C-alpha cells in the first residue's frame, strides 16, 4: 500500500514530470492556450503513458538490454498512432487544433523515461499506477497553465469544451470579465506559457521550502523539549 502512495506522491508532486523533471515542455508550452486544448493533450498523453507502461511492464522479462529501447519506442509509437486515430474519429475538431502535437507525444520524454526508469523494472499494477499518476501530474500542470492563460489572455474559462464533451458542454464557458474584455495578448503568445510555467515552478518551490521548514522545526522540537524537561522539569 505504501508503495502505491509513494508512486502517487511522486507522480503528482515530488517528481512531477512538468514542474520537477521538466520533461515534455514542448507540448506543455505549445498547446496550453486554453483549458480545452490542455485537457485534450493531457488525456491523449495519459492514454499513451498508461498504455505504454502496462505494455512495457508485461514484456519486461522478454527483452534484454540490447533491444530494450527499440522495443519501447515501437510500443510508444503504436500507442501514439492509435490515440491519434481515435482522436481523429471521435474528437475531430480538437484533433485539428492540437495538430502536430498529437503525433509528437511519441517524443515526449516523460513516456520513454517512465518506461525505462519504472515500468521495465516493476510489476503490472505499480507500472499502470505510475503511468496514471505521472500523466495526471502532467495533465494538472497543463490544466493550470491553460486555465491561467485562458483567463488572462481571453477573459474566459472552459470555452469550447464542446470539442471534447459534446454540444451540451458549450454552455460551460464562463466569461470572467464580461463581453468586452480585450484580452491580454502576452498570455496567449508563447512567452505567456513560459511566464506561467515559471510562476508555477516558483510556487511549487516555495511550498516545498515551507514544508521542509516545518518538518525541520517539528523534528527539532522534541530534542529541545526533552532537554528542557531534564533541566527545568517543566513541559513546554
Amino acid at each position, binding site marked *: 500500500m505504501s508503495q502505491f502512495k509513494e508512486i502517487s506522491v511522486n507522480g503528482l508532486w515530488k517528481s512531477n514530470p512538468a514542474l520537477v523533471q521538466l520533461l515534455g515542455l514542448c507540448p506543455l508550452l505549445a498547446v496550453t*492556450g486554453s483549458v480545452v486544448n490542455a485537457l485534450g493533450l493531457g488525456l491523449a498523453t495519459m492514454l499513451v503513458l498508461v498504455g505504454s507502461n502496462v505494455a512495457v511492464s508485461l514484456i519486461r522479462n*522478454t*527483452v*534484454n538490454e*540490447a*533491444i530494450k529501447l*527499440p*522495443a519501447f519506442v*515501437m*510500443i510508444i*509509437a*503504436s500507442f501514439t*498512432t*492509435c490515440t491519434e*486515430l*481515435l482522436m*481523429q*474519429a*471521435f474528437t*475531430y*475538431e480538437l484533433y*485539428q487544433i492540437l495538430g502536430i502535437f498529437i503525433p509528437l507525444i511519441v517524443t515526449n520524454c516523460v513516456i520513454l523515461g517512465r518506461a525505462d526508469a519504472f515500468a521495465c523494472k516493476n510489476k503490472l499494477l505499480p507500472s499502470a499506477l505510475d503511468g496514471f499518476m505521472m500523466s495526471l501530474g502532467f495533465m494538472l500542470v497543463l490544466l493550470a497553465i491553460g486555465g491561467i492563460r485562458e483567463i488572462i*489572455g481571453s477573459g474566459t474559462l472552459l470555452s469550447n469544451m464542446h470539442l471534447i464533451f459534446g454540444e451540451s458542454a458549450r454552455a460551460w464557458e464562463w466569461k470572467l470579465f464580461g463581453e468586452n474584455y480585450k*484580452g491580454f*495578448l502576452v498570455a*496567449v*503568445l508563447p512567452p505567456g506559457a513560459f511566464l506561467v510555467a515559471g510562476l508555477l515552478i516558483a510556487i511549487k518551490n516555495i511550498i516545498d521550502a515551507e514544508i521542509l521548514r516545518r518538518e525541520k522545526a517539528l523534528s527539532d522540537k522534541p530534542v529541545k523539549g526533552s532537554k528542557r524537561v531534564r533541566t527545568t522539569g517543566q513541559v513546554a
Partner: protein
Amino acid sequence: MLGKSISKNSLILGTFAIVTAGVLAVTFLATRDRIAAEEKRAAQKALTEIIPQSRHDNDMLEDVWVIPESQLAELGLASPSSIHIARQSEQNIAVVIPSIAPDGYSGDIKLITGINIDGSVAGVRVLSHKETPGLGDKVDLNKHTWILGFNDTSLNAPETDDWKVKKDGGHFDQFTGATITPRAVVKRVKQTLEYFNAHKAEILGNTDESI
C-alpha cells in the same frame, strides 16, 4: 555465440513489429469509416456555411471542377485543388473557390471564397492560418466578424480600385495593430473574383465528376 544472440534479438524485435503493426491495423480499420465521415462532415460544414443547404440541392462535395494545373498559380495554390459548384434543380447557383494568400504576417492563409453566379461574394472563410493570436487572427470568424464584411461585395461594389484596406485608401477595415493580414486577405479575395470572372464559362461548362 554472437550470431545466436543477434538472431534471437531480431526474432524478438520482429515479433514486436508484427504485434504493434497488428494493433495499428485493427485500430485503423475500426476507426477508418468514422474518420472518413468526420472529415466529410467538416468539409461539408465549411461549404454549407457559405452556401446554405437551402440554396442548393446537389452534393457540393462531389460536384467539383478540377482546377487545371496551369491556373493553380492564379489562386496561389500549390497542390491540386477543386472548385465546388452549388446547383439548385440543375441551375448553377454559386461556386466555392479555394485559394491561398501567401503574404500574411506569418505564412499562408488558406481561404475559401463563395461566389454567386452574378459575381457577388456569398462568403469568405479562413480555413487555416498562423497569424498572431489577438491581432491578425481576427480574420477567423471564431474570433471576429470582420470576414463577413465581404458578403455581397463584388468587383464593382466597391469599385475595383477600392479593393484595399482603409489604411491604403480602400474600402475594407483593417484591425488595430494588424494591417498586413487583412491586406493579404482582401488582395486574395479580389484576385479570386477576377479569376472567377475570367474562367466562369470554363468552370460552369465543364463539370467532369470522374476525377
